[in-house]
């Protein structure tokens, strides 16, 4: 009985299961931004995503510098942080040193991100206006990479409104043309595309044969309903003559929409946005008269390109945000707990640049609609409710120790084509903010309310006969804490 695995020595078997051998090789660093070549670029800035494994060690071993690598790591740099986290870039180098650095940045950010209970959703295409339904990246019709039949079963649930079913994938064999530079495009054409000419002609033949078969079948069924369409053999690709193919190709040259569909299907190109390209539905000159076209909405990844990882990036496996948080005093909450965010960069007066708000280590995108984030007035006392200007958002406030902070509500997250996490913020919710502030001890609304209510009011008195409680005006949780017994109002 031959074993599929080669027998190895006990030491080798031990080494293969060791932690050093289990370290994954580092992934490629985030793609550089070409426009940053002329801008200020920080070498020490936190990368968009981690590339190396984070290593930790027990506190006793950290005190002697033992991290399980070739040599003890220096105590001066590794014992100061609260959590022992390093990433090792080289276990040993020519200079006889271990190349390592702290991995607290990404690891703690991940921990903070998980505290947010955030789910990842498919990005909403640019051409969809109005209310947007968030779709999880783990939904059946979205989370697939190959157009296999088993995956297409899940696509049955996808409505035609959502776009071309095949373009709902998050991984494509070909490149995203809209994101390529000229040089990259030329290289792609010469290296990958040019060699496949004859293959493409065969692809066109099959396509033409299928079209011819369909045309003939429809003609037959129009003439005589009794003749079964499968009685006559289908047109084969070998039956297509050169003249027919030439004619078909000429036709395609005038039909840009069809041609692009064929090319992108052949090369498995990532989808591009209809809005920007020459394929915009408004440009009727690109369509053949008397022909039926399937026009779809943009793919979710059309405008910004497909993500370089799974669209959740492994950061969260939650499918939805639709769950309620319970508060011990106020009961189930309509909104999630607000998150304290820091105003990284206020809005600049001159450049009118959008302010940057750092939420748990990520820069959140403020909503583009009219919200309190877009209020540019200085603290306007006449403004009511959530549209109050946020202090420190429009101008730098040097009086705040540690910088200005703001409580925000996060709607959803997604990963863009460069691997960065994009958080979409909602407008502020003053009630959720107050509850969260009280939870963390920044304000005390409850005891103030108790104190105020314990003072007998003399302002207003109802006639004695009408004294009763208003039904269903209780706040927070049910009066009997949801346990089914009679509530307080029955006492």
């Amino acid at each position: 009985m031959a074993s599929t695995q080669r027998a190895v020595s006990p030491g080798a078997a031990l080494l293969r299961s060791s932690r050093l051998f289990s370290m994954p090789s580092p992934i490629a660093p985030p793609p550089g931004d070409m426009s940053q070549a002329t801008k200020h670029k920080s070498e020490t800035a936190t990368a968009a995503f981690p590339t190396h494994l984070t290593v930790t060690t027990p506190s006793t071993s950290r005190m002697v510098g033992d991290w399980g690598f070739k040599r003890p790591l220096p105590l001066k740099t590794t014992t100061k942080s609260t959590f022992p986290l390093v990433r090792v870039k080289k276990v040993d180098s020519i200079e006889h040193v271990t190349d390592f650095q702290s991995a607290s940045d990404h690891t703690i950010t991940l921990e903070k991100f998980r505290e947010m209970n955030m789910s990842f959703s498919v990005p909403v295409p640019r051409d969809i206006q109005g209310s947007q339904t968030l779709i999880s990246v783990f939904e059946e019709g979205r989370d697939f990479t190959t157009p296999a039949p088993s995956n297409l079963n899940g696509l049955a649930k996808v409505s035609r409104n959502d776009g071309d079913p095949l373009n709902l994938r998050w991984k494509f064999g070909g490149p995203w043309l809209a994101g390529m530079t000229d040089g990259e495009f030329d290289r792609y054409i010469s290296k990958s595309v040019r060699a496949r000419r004859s293959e493409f002609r065969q692809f066109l033949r099959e396509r033409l044969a299928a079209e011819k078969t369909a045309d003939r079948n429809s003609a037959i069924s129009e003439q005589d309903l009794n003749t079964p369409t499968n009685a006559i053999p289908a047109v084969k690709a070998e039956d297509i003559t050169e003249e027919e193919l030439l004619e078909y190709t000429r036709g395609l040259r005038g039909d840009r929409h069809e041609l692009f569909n064929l090319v992108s299907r052949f090369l498995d190109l990532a989808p591009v946005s209809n809005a920007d390209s020459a394929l915009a539905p408004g440009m009727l000159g690109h369509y053949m008269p008397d022909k039926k076209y399937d026009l779809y909405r943009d793919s979710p990844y059309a405008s910004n390109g497909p993500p370089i990882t799974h669209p959740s990036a492994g950061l969260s496996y939650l499918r939805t945000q639709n769950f309620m948080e319970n508060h011990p005093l106020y009961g189930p909450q309509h909104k999630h707990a607000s998150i304290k965010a820091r105003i990284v960069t206020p809005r600049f007066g001159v450049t009118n640049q959008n302010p940057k708000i750092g939420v748990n280590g990520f820069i959140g995108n403020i909503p583009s609609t009219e919200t309190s984030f877009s209020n540019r007035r200085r603290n306007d006392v006449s403004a009511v409710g959530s549209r109050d200007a946020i202090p420190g958002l429009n101008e730098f406030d040097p009086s705040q120790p540690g910088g200005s902070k703001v409580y925000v509500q996060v709607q959803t997250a997604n990963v863009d084509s460069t691997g960065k996490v994009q958080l979409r913020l909602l407008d502020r919710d003053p009630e959720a903010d107050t509850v969260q502030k009280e939870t963390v001890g920044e304000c005390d609304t409850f005891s103030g309310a108790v104190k105020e209510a314990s003072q007998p009011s003399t302002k207003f008195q109802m006639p004695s006969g009408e004294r009763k409680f208003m039904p269903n005006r209780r706040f927070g949780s049910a009066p009997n804490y949801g346990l089914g017994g009679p509530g307080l109002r029955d006492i």
Partner: protein
Amino acid sequence: MIIREFGVRQGKLPAAQAIADANPRHSRKALAAAAPLRRGPQQCLRALSTETSGTPVATADPAVESALQTNPENPSPVPSLFARVAKPTRRRPVEPDTTKADWETAQQLRRNLLPVGTKVEHRYGPADVFRNPPGPKDVTLELLMASQAHMGHHASVWNPANARYIYGIREGIHIISLEQTAAHLRRAARVVEEVAYHGGLILFVGTRPGQTQIVTQAARLSKACHLFTKWTPGTITNSDKILPGIPVEIVDELDRPVGPAFNQHLMDRRALVPDLVVCLNPLENFTMLRECSQANVPTIGIIDTNTEPTWVTYAIPANDDSLRCLAVIGSVLGRAGEAGQKRRMEDAKNGKVTWETPSEIKQFIEIQQKRARWTKRAAEEEEAAANKANGGPNQSSTPRSSDRSYGRTPSTNKDGTPIFHADEAMAELQAEVDVINAEDDVSPQLRNMMRNLD
């Protein structure tokens, strides 16, 4: 946490307990005391509620507002919760200080609960290797791997002579085969044990920072010497200059000092040379290893992938940078030496001496014996001469001129014991050496020493 805070706050109101009593159905619930209060502050709590309809705070609900009032005209069935709450709070009575009793109760509770629950097993601590040093029998591949013995240097700085110890390349470094390390470590442990068994002098050397504890522990276990500072070049090859007057002790087979009988020998004895050197970092101690090879001293060294393995007699291929690995290897060798010493002492108690007396000491003993004989003979002759002088005056008291050991009559103390002259003794010793040199049974070492003297 929030619940506890509010509970404490509410506890300050004496009415809270009364309310709880009035509502026995609710008294079992955690927030029972605080619950009735929620009826009062509705007006204020509205700002915190999750209801999105209605303007917060700005308007008060008249119905609720009225419910909060005590109406003097109609003193009937008001839920009266609020009335109780609104009573002026009394000051809390002064309670006796129960801190001590509470603490004792807590300690008692802790003692009672200590054996309850999961038992946490101690698996590893960095100091374990010093608290309970592993011996040669404890060497396993798992132990060696856990102590990072398999991690060699960057693949580009290797010494090709170590190719037979290397298993492969991973993470850019050479991986040392664990089987090789274990086999060589066991062999080295056997060498240390036998050297200790035969009474040899072992020296543990580790001169990198952090190796002090390792070499001292190994030396303590195996009753050996240790070095954790710089090796002074020439300590072996030029020991007469480097180590003059280093105190040396002569012991018997049971390691007891033999007393002042050999003081004369110790005064002019050369410094000792170790019989085995264990080096934890051969790369930095090349000079020492070179001197050892010149003096025919066997060496044991930890050979990393960038070290030349021919520098040492017995190589142990392992990671020489990890203190954890060095501690394991050092303690294994120390335990081996300890076992050798133990065996030696047991044999000595049974009358079996496992080592030979050094030839210099043998010579010294022989000379002393000869000297004693000659002294005795001289005394006898003197006595005979005196007797003859008493009986026959023509007898001479001068010793024979052929007696090499005494060029002149030794002066004696009052009690008749000879007075010792160091210069004479040296001359006599040299003369003895000349005689022995002429004979065949001279040891090569001694001959070598004499050649040096010449």
